[in-house]
């Protein structure tokens, strides 16, 4: 520490000395001017962080997906290069098609459900009424619960024979539904639980967006006869659009990679009916120890997310331009 503090004046002394010798610095030198160095120094920590925690894993994952990376690799450090063989294995595997379809269904249905319920609740809480703050805080609960705990709880709620949901439906006269044990229903059950998990995120962001809409707009609208549904259609929705695009696209990126809920509820079953790309990636890597194939699955997932991330960035830029 002490050595640093003695060095600094020396550096600045030489800097000022060089400046004195060359009163008209060339443009190239100006790049090293103090101000620029300071700028660079501010960027460097963020840059190093990005390289270490985003750049390295992404590159490593890409390389791994081109290697025969198994348990042996951890001991010997040897991972033979296999090119695109892992991707061929992935795409030709019988489960790839169904898993891709399930991923799409899971993502779209979850987002639609979360967004619709989230927007309705956000509009509801936008009106002031007793206890509204308290209730809004309570809505955050699913977000605070560890997903493994939530999925274990839901698993017992959804049990066919003794689950509380079927018991309740029974009192209304609806026969027991095989939530997690029928291949036709399991995906729906998993989506319902994921919607429950995602509602707080949607409510929070949309509520924030609603709060930002100036009350004067509604007052002016009222004078012109815009109330109720009309007010929502012509005032709320257009003003909320930037927030909506953020919510939807972040929602897609978060939902497409969901793993813990599915593992906790069905582990990809029954009869592979809830397999998604994320579950395949996990099972290939950590159940079958085929880390190369698992990496290939996750890269496919990353590419799909990336497409949505780019759409998000572009939509965002357009919003700023407007």
């Amino acid at each position, binding site marked *: 520490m002490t050595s640093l503090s003695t060095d600094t004046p020396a550096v600045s002394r030489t800097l000022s000395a060089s400046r004195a010798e060359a009163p008209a610095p060339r443009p190239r030198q100006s790049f090293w001017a103090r101000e620029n160095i300071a700028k660079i120094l501010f960027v460097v920590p963020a840059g190093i962080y990005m390289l270490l925690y985003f750049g390295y894993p992404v590159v490593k994952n890409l390389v791994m997906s081109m290697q025969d990376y198994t348990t042996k690799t951890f001991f010997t450090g040897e991972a033979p290069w296999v090119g695109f063989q892992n991707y061929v294995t992935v795409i030709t595997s019988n489960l790839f098609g169904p898993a891709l379809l399930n991923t799409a269904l899971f993502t779209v249905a979850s987002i639609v459900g979360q967004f619709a319920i989230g927007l309705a609740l956000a509009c509801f809480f936008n009106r002031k009424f007793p206890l509204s703050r308290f209730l809004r805080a309570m809505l955050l609960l699913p977000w605070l619960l560890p997903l493994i705990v939530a999925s274990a709880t839901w698993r017992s709620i959804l049990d066919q024979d003794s689950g509380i949901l079927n018991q309740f439906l029974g009192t209304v006269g609806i026969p027991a539904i095989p939530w997690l044990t029928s291949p036709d229903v399991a995906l729906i059950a998993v989506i319902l639980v994921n919607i429950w998990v995602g509602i707080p995120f949607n409510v929070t962001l949309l509520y924030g967006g609603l709060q930002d809409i100036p009350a004067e707009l509604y007052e002016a609208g009222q004078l012109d006869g815009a109330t109720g549904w009309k007010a929502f259609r012509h005032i709320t929705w257009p003003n909320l659009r930037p927030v909506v695009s953020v919510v939807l696209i972040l929602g897609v990126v978060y939902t497409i990679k969901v793993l813990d809920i599915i593992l906790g509820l069905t*582990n990809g079953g029954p009869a592979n009916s809830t397999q998604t790309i994320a579950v395949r990636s996990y099972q290939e890597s950590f159940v079958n120890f085929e880390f190369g194939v698992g990496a290939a699955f996750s890269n496919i997932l990353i590419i799909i997310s990336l497409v949505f991330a780019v759409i998000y960035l572009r939509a965002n830029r357009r919003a700023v331009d407007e």
Partner: protein
Amino acid sequence: MKNHNKKRLTKALAMAALVPFVLTACGGGAGAGSGGDASTLTLMDYYNNEPDNLAIKKEIENCAADIGVTIEREAVPGKDLIQKVLQKSSSKTLPDILMLDNPDLQEIAATGGLAPLSDFNVDTSGFAQGMLDAGTYEGEVYGLAPTANTLGLFYNKKLLAAAGLKPPTTWDELKSTASALTKGSQYGLAFSGIATYEGAWQFLPFMWTNGGSETELNSTANKEALQLYKDLVDSGATSKGVINWGQGDVKDQFMAGKAAMMINGPWQIPALNEDPSLEWGSVQVPVNKAGQTPTAPLGGEVWTVPQTGNKAKQAKAAEFISCFTKGDTQIALGTQRYTVPTKPELAKEYIAKMPDMASFTEQIANARSRTGNLGTEWPKAATTIYTAIQLVLTGKASVDDAFTQAAKG
């Protein structure tokens, strides 16, 4: 005065800032210096729950004292063990003594990360053949187990007595008894058909007892076992929920009186005994035709010596394993943990102490290891087995097509 304090504070802080450097220096020095010294061994296992944790801890300490070493034990959650092992092997920090679940041994031994026990002249005689098979990779024994577990049929004594029934011994009896015990919210039988290795493991007693094999899954014997599962679920004697039940769920159903019988292992006995009103008994898993030998899979953990590069420590670790798998330790662990000693000569002494364990001890004598035939290919076969069960029980495939369809992945 104030100023003085401030100075002292600065000094203290400066000293505190130095602490990490000093510590790392010490750490490095100690690591380098311990090259030839084998007085401290590190050990990793997955017994992080009671009552296993304390029982294992006590026996580890006994053996450590016996061979004159101190043991630093790390108990990690069961699910994390293999990932931990892989991490530690790539950073060259494997423990001196490593416990592995027996079906994982071949996978890890195949990587070259374990030392054959013959390198250290460990005596491997007197162990049950199935258990030795589980610890063997390409002809070399890499791991030994002090005790083992397996599967059996548990039954609720009160429910069977009320219906005037005896525990079943054949598949036909199993089906009729289970049907007779099914009424209201109570099912006759529960087993685990979940889409994990647990589901495959529970299917093995039926498959193997009937003469089936994991090397040829698409055989008549295996299909008959699958048909049994289907009959039980279709007749309503077993809940459709079994395809999402782990063995813990099966035990919960049995304890709640919602299943009169269950397929499960002796590690559930401590939980069963917590409810004094529950009277249970256990028999071997029923056979298809009278005269068949009940053959169940062998469960349990094997203890190994990883290749750490420190010969002196490895030799001590091997000495520890000899101690940890000797007769006294086997009986001590077996009585505390409801697991069966792996030396058949101890069976009589053990049953005398643990009459509840009689059927499981018999079962162990003929039990087989999962990896004995297929080695590192076992996980693939296990995946095919549990997928086939799921396909059949959900009606997505017929019994005839299930294994073929499941094998396609």
